[in-house]
């Protein structure tokens, strides 16, 4: 299992009138071949910024400050913009939270799919049209011929997401970044999309997936490994079993306790406090103001990433001591 994507110490800032928002504060994780890595965390924890930083789609006033994004050993952050553009869609692709607004409202499905195929596979118009029919069938859409003539607002969320997935996998990308692709869909459609993504991996249309979600249930269903994000940092990273069965970081534990379970009645656990303001992040460990197991060292010193097992990492002073 080779390393496909290795993110090291990624820092991204946004320069706003309120001050510098340190959205990513040294994010590191690795995605291997044939792996689905889930990136979970609360709103504002930096999940989407991580995705956009990898794609280099951070627009002003945002800026990637430092770090490395090694894709097959090549640093994407050092690429020329033109080279990077050729990576997007071909090697790394992305799907979005709300598929209906990710499609251009004034162009019909056919134009958009065909254009993507022309760009990423270098086909002519005729070949591209033929390929578009195959692609749309591949993502499980019925009646593809007439679908080409339809406009995004005529599609249901699920159909639109399938169309967008078809476009993003046209060139069989190595990595698909899925930014909450199911959050705007209802539960039955959600599971269909998850099944589709798994299926596309099996038939080699995509190699690996970085799956961003705030829904632990969805993450548990699809992902092999999970990275828990908080305040612009990865708090804990491990296989699905490690994260769900033996969470080590107090934040991950809190998250697990906050998930409702069947047969459980009574008040659900919540983590007290709220997400830190990243203009002035708390010193030391970003989680310490909300941490139930806070120690004095947490206020001042940033925890190092500790390797617990071959695949399990966590950033917490509790673990450093052991």
């Amino acid at each position, binding site marked *: 299992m080779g390393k496909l994507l290795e993110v090291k110490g990624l820092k991204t800032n946004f320069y706003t009138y309120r001050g510098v928002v340190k959205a990513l504060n040294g994010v590191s994780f690795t995605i291997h071949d044939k792996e689905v890595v889930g990136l979970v965390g609360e709103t504002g924890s930096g999940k989407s910024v991580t995705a956009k930083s990898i794609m280099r*789609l951070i627009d002003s006033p945002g800026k990637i400050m430092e770090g490395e994004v090694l894709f097959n050993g090549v640093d994407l952050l050092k690429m020329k913009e033109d080279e990077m553009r050729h990576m*997007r*869609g071909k090697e790394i692709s*992305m799907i*979005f939270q709300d598929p209906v607004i*990710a*499609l*251009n409202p004034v*162009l019909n499905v056919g134009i958009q799919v065909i254009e993507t195929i022309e760009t990423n596979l270098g086909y002519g118009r005729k070949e591209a049209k033929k390929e578009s029919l195959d692609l749309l069938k591949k993502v499980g859409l019925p009646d593809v011929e007439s679908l080409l003539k339809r406009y995004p607002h005529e599609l249901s969320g699920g159909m639109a997401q399938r169309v967008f997935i078809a476009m993003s996998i046209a060139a069989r990308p190595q990595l698909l970044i899925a930014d909450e692709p199911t959050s705007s869909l209802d539960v039955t459609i959600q599971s269909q999309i998850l099944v589709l993504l798994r299926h596309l991996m099996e038939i080699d249309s995509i190699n690996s997936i970085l799956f961003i979600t705030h829904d632990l249930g969805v993450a548990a269903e699809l992902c092999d490994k999970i990275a828990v994000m908080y305040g612009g940092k990865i708090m804990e990273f491990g296989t699905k079993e490690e994260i769900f069965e033996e969470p080590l970081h107090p934040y991950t534990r809190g998250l697990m306790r906050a998930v409702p379970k069947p047969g459980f009645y009574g008040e659900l656990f919540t983590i007290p406090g709220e997400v830190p303001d990243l203009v002035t992040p708390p010193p030391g460990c970003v989680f310490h103001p909300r941490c139930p197991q806070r120690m004095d060292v947490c206020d001042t010193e940033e925890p190092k990433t500790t390797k617990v097992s071959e695949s399990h990492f966590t950033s917490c002073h509790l673990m450093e001591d052991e």
Partner: protein
Amino acid sequence: MSETKKSWLYRHRYQLEDIKLMIRLLNESLTAKIGIFLITCFVLLAVFGPILAPYKPLVQDLTNRFMPPSSEHLFGTDQLGRDIFSRVLHGSRISLVMGIVVTSILFVIGTSLGLIAGYFGGKVDEVLMRLTDMFLAFPSLILAMAVAAALGPGLFNTMVTIAFVAWPRYARLARACCLQVKEETYIEAAKALGLSHGRIIFTQILPMIISPLIVQATINLGGVILQAAGLGFLGLGAQPPDPEWGLMISEGRRFISDQWWVSGFPGIMILLVVLSFNLIGDSLRDVMDVRMRR
């Protein structure tokens, strides 16, 4: 045969519905009807005018100078005995061609530059927008006069002049619309799919912002014709003996107190044409604005 015809109708049903809706909305507005009627007359005159004209526009008949409007000379004759009705008809073709050619050039150049400025932002935007500021800082007719004086008179130079002076307005509008659209998710999605800048600008953004630009172009068509006439009037545009409206007004202004028809009829034509383009432009703006529908 009927099968293919039906399927063509079926395949284009949304476009057809859209056109139908536009026609219905235009039909509901009186100003649009007046505008469309006048423009249709104007276009027909421009196309068939030279055939309909009873006299040759350049032929002089010095025995019949300054004839008042009569059944023989519908609009009377000018100081050289030329039939003003025939000259006005020929002039309509000059004005129409001028209006359409110049507006098309403006549309293409202004829109492209505006889109590029808006999309890329940063230094490109800064340079292009300061350039438009320079143009917009002068009253356009003054600037046009300076350019026309430098280029020399003539119909072709008039077109170049007007295009040169008026593009910044299109660029500004296109840029403003582009700035709004480029923040949309589907533009980011298009980037994430690796589409080239050219494709994003011209196939993703342009269709979104085309309606305000069309409205602007329609309203501006009248303005272009007016400006061409203005340059003609000042002697910087068309040259005698061209039957250009502005020039005709200028030639007749010495006689305006006694022979009002020499300047009067070309003036009325300019008024009607510019008015009709403005009426149509206004109604198009209402019709194309999605918020006005339903």
